[in-house]
């Protein structure tokens, strides 16, 4: 361990430090708003470190300006790919922190714990996208998940506790399955680093009906099952609506955006770097999971009456769309369009979903219900939140000029390029089915409120407004001028694929 290692991990270290600082400050400061502001403003530090790591990046050779060959004896690695996710997590975190400022106050949540756990989970996420061996992957994953489980239960009422426990059990279950798969892979490759696994498995005689062959197969499948839970893909999706319904809404926002994104990063890294040289064709597996996830997610969303459950199924469907890009990546040897489409989709989805869920958290706090029917009359009570929700719902359908429109074209193009025409067709049909339930929400908001519910104007705090405006603007920006983010996503994808070659 030397100074350079610490510098390369400085974003992760600083955000963990910030988490501890937040909890400490909460103990001594009476004004709880200060705690939130420290958490928010403090994010400048990890962001600054991450930016300084990007500084000097040579795009043509895909070389970072810093020496990033190996961190802590091949425990972590640094590339544009991992930095891309660092920025995604930090951005989502900043929006969630700002966007939950009034929610935390109104719902009476413990402030220090809430923001501290959010930051801790984010530090786990940022470690996870850099983790280079099975042990650091596992630890980083637990560091990501356990704070989220605590956050799900933080409202300390029946529903919240229930969803916290459910989340904990599901995490434990998926971790156990994943560990079992890792054990197989380790046993057969004799290495814990991703590159070592890749080298070790290349000596496994495939196609000879040997026991190693089935061992590898079982290991891969178990890993996939474990990851499937984290991705919220079908058929490992059942916990999603239950947990979403019970957890505090800003936590759901973070969970559905950041946690999902890093899970995709993990899948891409594991299957590209670790299993990249393995002569296994897992396209069909991902394609089937993708098709089932989007179809099941969209169909089940139609009959939902609770908006958070609806978003639970919606997130399953979007996991399906993103998996289309994952399935597409393997076919074309040196092309990275599948990976870059996934990376772009994750940002587009993050911006749209954060807008929606922050608006929903505000509405839920005011209306006191997450039932879609109770949204009637919202357009009169809060034109701001209505417009925000309309923009995000339209984005989630995939209508231009929003990011997900471009992202969908991107993943479907990737699928078509890889010869997965049928998957693109399933995706297109699904996009139309999804319009049905998203539009229903819009329709209810514009209906007049005929019951005796509180009809006063909704006040939205300045910070929350800012968070919603920023994420909505990002959605529109990605839909009109996508080429910058797309270029960065391509660089990140190349840096991942280069590791393989």
């Amino acid at each position, binding site marked *: 361990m030397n100074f350079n290692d610490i510098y390369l991990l400085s974003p992760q270290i600083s955000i963990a430090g910030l988490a501890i600082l937040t909890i400490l400050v909460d103990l001594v400061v009476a004004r709880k708003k200060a705690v939130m502001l420290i958490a928010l403003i403090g994010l400048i530090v990890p962001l600054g470190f991450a930016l300084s790591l990007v500084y000097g990046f040579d795009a043509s050779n895909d070389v970072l300006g810093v020496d990033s060959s190996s961190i802590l004896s091949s425990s972590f690695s640094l590339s544009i790919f991992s930095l891309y996710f660092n920025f995604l997590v930090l951005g989502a975190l900043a929006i969630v922190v700002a966007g939950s400022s009034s929610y935390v106050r109104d719902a009476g949540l413990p402030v220090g714990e809430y923001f501290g756990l959010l930051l801790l989970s984010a530090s786990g996420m940022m470690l996870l996208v850099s983790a280079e061996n099975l042990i650091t992957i596992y630890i980083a994953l637990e560091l990501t998940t356990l704070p989220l489980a605590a956050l799900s239960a933080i409202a300390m009422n029946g529903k919240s506790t229930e969803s916290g426990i459910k989340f904990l059990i599901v995490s434990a279950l998926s971790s156990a399955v994943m560990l079992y798969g890792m054990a197989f892979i380790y046993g057969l490759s004799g290495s814990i680093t991703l590159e070592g696994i890749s080298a070790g498995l290349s000596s496994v005689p495939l196609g000879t009906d040997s026991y190693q062959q089935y061992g590898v197969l079982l290991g891969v499948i178990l890993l996939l099952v474990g990851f499937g839970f984290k991705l919220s893909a079908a058929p490992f999706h059942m916990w999603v609506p239950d947990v979403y319904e019970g957890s505090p809404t800003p936590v759901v926002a973070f969970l559905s955006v950041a946690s999902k994104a890093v899970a995709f990063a993990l899948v891409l890294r594991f299957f590209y770097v670790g299993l990249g040289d393995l002569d296994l064709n897992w396209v069909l597996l991902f394609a089937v999971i993708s098709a089932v996830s989007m179809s099941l997610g969209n169909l089940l969303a139609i009959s939902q009456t609770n908006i958070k459950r609806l978003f639970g199924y919606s997130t399953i469907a979007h996991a399906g769309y993103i998996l289309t890009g994952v399935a597409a990546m393997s076919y*074309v040897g040196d092309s990275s369009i599948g990976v870059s489409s996934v990376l772009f989709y994750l940002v587009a989805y993050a911006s749209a979903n954060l807008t929606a869920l922050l608006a929903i958290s505000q509405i839920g706090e005011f209306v006191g219900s997450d039932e879609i029917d109770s949204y009637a009359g919202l357009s009169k009570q809060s034109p701001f939140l209505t417009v925000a929700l309309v923009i995000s719902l339209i984005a989630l359908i995939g209508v231009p000029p929003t990011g997900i429109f471009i992202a969908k074209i991107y993943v479907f193009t990737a699928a078509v390029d890889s010869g997965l025409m049928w998957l693109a067709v399933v995706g297109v049909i699904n996009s139309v089915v999804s319009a049905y339930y998203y539009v229903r929400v819009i329709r209810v908001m514009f209906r007049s409120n005929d019951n005796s519910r509180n009809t006063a104007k909704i006040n939205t705090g300045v910070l929350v407004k800012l968070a919603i405006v920023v994420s909505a603007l990002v959605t529109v920006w990605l839909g009109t001028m996508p080429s910058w983010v797309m270029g960065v996503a391509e660089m990140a994808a190349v840096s991942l694929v280069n590791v393989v070659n």
Partner: protein
Amino acid sequence: MISEWLVWSVFLLPVAAFIVISLVVRPLFNRYAVVSGLILIVCLTISFLISVYVLAIVASGVNLVFEAHDWLILGSAKISIGLLVDSVTAIMLVVVTGVSLLVQIYSLGYMKGDPSFCRYYAYMALFTASMIGVVIAVNIVQLYAFWELVGVSSYLLIGFWHERSSAAAAAKKAFIITRIGDVGFLLAIVYLFVQSDSFGAIGLNSLHIPDIWIAAQPLAAGGAALLGGTGLLFLTLGIFAGAAGKSGQFPLHTWLPDAMEGPTPVSALIHAATMVAAGVFLVARLYPVFEQSSDTMLIIAIIGAVTAFVAAALGLVMNDIKRVMAYSTVSQLGYMMAALGLGAFGPAMFHLFTHAFFKALLFLCAGSVNHAAGTFNMQYMGGLRKSMPITYVATIIGALSLVGIIPFAGFWSKDEILMSANVASNLTVISVGTIVFILLLAGVFLTALYSARMIHLTFHGQFRGGGTREISDAESRGVDLGPNVSSHVHLAESPILMVVPLLILSFLTVTVGYISNPQWVKSVFGIPKHWITEFLIESLPAYLNMHSLEFDPLVAVISTVIVLIGLSIGSWVYLGSRYASPNPSEDPISRLGPLYVILSNKYYIDYLYENIIVRKLFYTAIVGISDAFDKYIVDGVFNGLGIASKKLGRALTMLQTGQVQLYTIVAVAGTIILLAIYLASGSWN
């Protein structure tokens, strides 16, 4: 040659108006809401003038070719953004900006005092901009993006009075049904993505519209013949599905009449000149591709003709004057589609052009009538010709143009369509052309009939009470009509802001048909014979060797006789009955008996869609089965196993819905299924 930015500004001006109205006027100066209308009108006036200038340039024979700008590069496919300005674009630009401008002026009067005046003009600006975006797009993804935006903004406009649940439902229906058609369009685009490599091999871009034309053309004509066979069939059918959704072709027409829930000027704009015409425009835009697939052309011709006939019949039994117009629009769009299917490219676009004027006129007349009578229900109108002479004359002009009486605009364009159908038909053998020709002629008869009924019910006979009476009638039946009907009956001509657009459109309706396409003499005011059809054909590849048909007196006489018979029967029945009570059962049309029942239930198509397909099939069957799968099958497996529950369950008894155990079972089942897929797929090398 003119600057590219000048053409872009046609599109950018309404965009700017949208931004200024929604970000500056509405939040800050809502008290002076009328400013928003003026901003849009000024922007559209400039857009319109530029459009006319562009048309003049294109008509003078200058070929406007602009380099497209790269926007996105996705793998081997390149999406560019650019302008495609040919004769079709130039004419569409003039129609869209011109009609939109008149509608905006009319709206100043019609929407006066509406609390959401600013929002209305913001939506209108967004809609007009999106429609212009569709017209000028050079790339099919660019076109699709604006196509979707047209859908979104029309959703907002149809549901403008969203506090009325019928308006919200209609908006949603329009959005969903047009999206069902869009599945086909999107799949066609996906197919073009698939082709990007083979296009790229010869230096073409599979998403660039002029390149798609070249790819579809045969080698002999200098094309690339890349598209053909089944691929071409599915490509064209997919695009046509999208066009049929937007243009309300049978059986996707059901959203259009419901969309009349929007404010009347909205109907005039989106159901006369723009959104519904976008479908026809799309087929015309890719006509060189369609032309290569004779099967698709046949299907388009038949669907168009069936739509023309079926919708005209529905127009006969409607009581709401706007719904009569709506079915009339569907029917006229059928004429355009049928013409395209028969290869009559010029006449189809010519009819789109004239229809934009006379249908906008008729919609604005309906709005004017509503302004006075407080209702759209014709059963409660009658005798309005005395108090509203200008609207009366304008409606007569619009209706005569619609049915196709010489010399009104509609006559010239419809006559060309009928001539093309006549050429395609062969009365000795039963062919598709013959069926289409007969259906179109039958449609002409029905059009005359419903137009006569509409005019007599609205303007002749005696006044039957208007909105006041309708509300009191509804109250006695215990029905609440909601805000759609106003008790404010004020039998007088509409304000000047509404009358002026009527006058302008009336003038155009009388003159534009012959002036733009003279048929008998070499030139009129320097406009050469068959100008507009010849001009439109210029956009097509030369090898098609298209030319305008010479005026055929026989067809003109046949259609005129049919129209006169239709008008006479209508007038005879309705002038003779002179019923004074607003009771639909006294309406002579109800004597049609079972036919009337079928028609007034709209052939039960809505029932089929909503009750059987959506509710029974979709909700109960598909969604129900997936729900049941999630809950019961997996649950059943779990109960069967039974053992795990006790161990896991004890720790989880506090859970309200103890489904956590299910996750485990599903995970195990999922693992087994994944393994099975893997082994079965044979991907194990």
